[in-house]
């Protein structure tokens, strides 16, 4: 891991784990505090293509394509009394692994790749949905704290196997 110290590695890993914990606990306001104001948060649509095509991801269309304000809007919505999709809330579990860190474009940034397995279940239905993805993040140090400045979620499914994305990756 060229240019990344053990200390930075530990800090970044701790940040990602804490951030996942906030999402799983439904602490969305606190999660917003983990983001930079210029965050770009994208989950592009994927389409099955032949091996020769460079990428299966469709740049022009996202399942989510967010900035800070729209993420704040999604959180504010959950705080109303009428967000039926998440009331009763989904029970989610973010499983993170394969964390890889590289130096970023700026001195105060690192690029982080991680694998995500997201478990979701609702109500008394014993069935669950699993979403698997690779996340490409950019973390930036702001006033001594790591913040999420960019997240690109590369899903493994083209047809999403859950009834909506009222949850976050």
């Amino acid at each position, binding site marked *: 891991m060229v240019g990344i110290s053990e200390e930075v590695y530990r800090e970044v890993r701790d940040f990602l784990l804490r951030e996942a914990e906030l999402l799983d606990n439904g602490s969305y306001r606190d999660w917003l505090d983990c983001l930079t104001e210029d965050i770009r948060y994208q989950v592009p649509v994927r389409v099955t293509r*032949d*091996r*020769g095509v460079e990428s299966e991801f469709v740049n022009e269309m996202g399942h989510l394509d967010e900035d800070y304000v729209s993420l704040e809007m999604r959180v504010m919505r959950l705080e109303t009394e009428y967000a039926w999709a998440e009331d009763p809330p989904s029970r989610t579990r973010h499983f993170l692994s394969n964390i890889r860190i590289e130096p970023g474009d700026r001195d105060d940034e690192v690029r982080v790749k991680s694998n995500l397995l997201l478990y979701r279940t609702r109500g008394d239905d014993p069935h669950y949905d699993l979403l698997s993805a690779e996340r490409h993040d950019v973390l930036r140090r702001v006033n001594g704290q790591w913040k999420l400045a960019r997240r690109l979620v590369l899903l493994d499914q083209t047809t999403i196997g859950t009834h909506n994305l009222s949850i976050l990756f």
Partner: protein
Amino acid sequence: MSDEVIEIGNEFTFVRVRKVHTRNGVRLEIHSPRLGYRIQLDPLELESLTWQTTETFSRFLETPFGPRERLMRPLSEALICDRREE
């Protein structure tokens, strides 16, 4: 002297295309690594392709794996050929 190789493919096959410089001129080489065929076309031949219809190519494809109809080239052969090419 070799120019950049362009790969062009879809879900059915792919080919490599490159400009090949001869001592006195230039040709366009189309190479099918899967089937092991290769053709080098000069500008006149290429030009003649421009007035063909789909019918011509449908006729070419009457034998979808080429005239010899080898269904697959042994991997070892493919590896040797491709190395030689580099």
